[in-house]
């Protein structure tokens, strides 16, 4: 490679504080990981300054998906008038400009999978409008835990996919800044002139180590071969309680339920893990057993989405496993799928 100026920059905590102030001045809300209480869980919340942001956690409890797919969202409102119904669409221009700061590379990658489902057969105007008004300022992983498996799915602790800016903590309050999109350049516009990153800014040396845990190529065919193996799925799901914690913390789970409330049509998070999810009006339930619902969770993420949308419904963030009240480890179950003899 010829001598070329390193396009990456350096920023310190004061620089970040200036950026936060600038973004807020532009009318953007900033969502970032914040520790709930001393030693409490870390989750995304609206913040005003980097002092409120947690940098030392491995992963937030929830993903950042609620920035584009809130747990309750009004789709439109309606009013009955004599013999007609008056519909009122949401004002897309009124949706908030948002910066999600401090999400992980796996989270940034997850937005495309989420979009692949929500925009699959018909464009989802609300999701897409929120997505267009969203910027992603990712902070690379300098720590990982046993539930992380991004590298097994093509991601990595310093992966840039999906991000507008990627920050890597270089220690002593300094961050390496990689600008990845035009939107990212725009976000930096208010930072003044940032010093170029010299050769000493060694990103790779700072990144968490996340070993590859299984061969992804084996998962699709192994799942297909196992589809009818009831004993296999029953064995995996025996301790599953059938709650929705895994789906609700997942950055790519997109199932929803529709509710009407006082003239408002609401989209609410739902989960294929619930028995009610597939219950028909007739009383018939095509997935009456928890083992079938667990199978659906894996098949959808690693087989159906691969076939239909050409993407996986998992980025290896490990949230489902951390949130599970009974330690259903997705990684462990995938390893069992990959290793099982057909």
């Amino acid at each position: 490679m010829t001598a070329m100026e390193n396009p990456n920059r350096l920023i310190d905590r004061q620089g970040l504080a200036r950026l936060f102030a600038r973004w807020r001045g532009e009318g953007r809300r900033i969502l970032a990981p914040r520790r709930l209480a001393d030693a409490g869980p870390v989750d995304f919340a609206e913040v005003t300054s980097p002092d409120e942001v947690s940098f030392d956690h491995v992963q937030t409890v929830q993903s950042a998906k609620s920035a584009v797919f809130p747990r309750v969202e009004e789709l439109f409102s309606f009013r009955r008038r004599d013999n007609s119904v008056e519909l009122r669409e949401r004002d897309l221009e009124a949706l908030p400009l948002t910066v999600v700061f401090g999400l992980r590379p796996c989270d940034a990658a997850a937005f495309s999978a989420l979009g692949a489902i929500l925009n699959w057969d018909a464009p989802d105007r609300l999701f897409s409008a929120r997505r267009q008004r969203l910027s992603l300022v990712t902070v690379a992983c300098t720590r990982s835990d046993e539930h992380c498996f991004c590298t097994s799915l093509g991601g990595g602790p310093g992966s840039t996919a999906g991000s507008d800016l990627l920050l890597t903590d270089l220690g002593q309050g300094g961050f390496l800044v990689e600008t990845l999109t035009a939107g990212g350049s725009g976000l930096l516009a208010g930072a003044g002139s940032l010093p170029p990153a010299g050769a000493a800014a060694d990103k790779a040396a700072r990144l968490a180590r996340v070993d590859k845990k299984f061969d992804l190529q084996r998962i699709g065919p192994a799942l297909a071969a196992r589809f009818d193996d009831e004993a296999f799925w029953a064995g995996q799901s025996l301790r599953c309680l059938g709650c929705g914690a895994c789906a609700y913390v997942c950055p790519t789970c997109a199932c929803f339920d529709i509710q009407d409330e006082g003239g408002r049509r609401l989209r609410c998070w739902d989960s294929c893990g619930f028995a009610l999810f597939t219950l028909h009006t007739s009383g018939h339930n095509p997935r009456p057993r928890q083992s079938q619902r667990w199978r659906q969770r894996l098949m959808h993420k690693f087989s159906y989405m691969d076939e239909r949308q050409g993407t996986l419904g998992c980025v290896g963030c490990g949230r489902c496993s951390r949130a599970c009240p009974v330690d259903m480890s997705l990684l462990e179950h995938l390893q069992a799928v990959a290793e099982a003899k057909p």
Partner: protein
Amino acid sequence: MEELRSKARELLASGAVQVVIGYGRGSGGHARALFLRDPGRAHELVYDGSCLQNLCVYLLKPEVRRLGKPALVAHAAALRTILQLAAENQLAEGALLALLPGPGGIETLATFAAIEERVAALDHGLGAGEKEELQRQEAMTLEQRRDFWQEQFSRCLKCYACRAACPLCYCTRCTVECNQPQWIPVPAHDLGNLEWNVLRAMHLAGRCVDCGDCGRACPVAIPLHLLNRKLAAVAEESFAFRAGRAAKADNALSTFKPDDPEDFIQ
């Protein structure tokens, strides 16, 4: 631990039970539920301070019931759960064996009477920390308490992990799933979250045995068990009744007594 393993081996090999519901090693070295059917794998059983989950939640799960008669590795709260489930006609005498690990070894409790006796001996009420937690709540003004719980419930995702983890939330169709009429709003907004969490706690008033699994299961760390603990205290004050102490007992909130003073109706 060896004694527990050999007991499990013996029970499975003799056919006395078909499954031992116990704890095995899970992620991060913590314990997780283990369904042991093969006596040859009894070495996978563990028992230590991380074995907190109330395994009684599995006793009524259809998939687990199909495995046959269980022996259940039970801590004190699990023993209380068994009695409460019996009192609510969910468990029949002889339906399971309870294995209680203790300093003197493994105690095998085969009858409700034996469990009742053990529960009475083990029952020391709330610990100092638990009492303090409750007193902190009681010391709040109504407004402070309302603000505290509204703030807590604002995080609720309605994932129903609290319900799923609770061995006494065994309804095959929960009220939140009834929509003709819709009693509880489905959306996880302020009203929906308040109604759901109040309903869940109230439905367990006088039934909760204080295992704490609702609070432990909550992915967003809402201390749900505090609500249940307070309601248990109220049930005890009002009716001199504590759930999970007897296999035959009236239900505090659904038993009609002609001599009830009903002095709360003004």
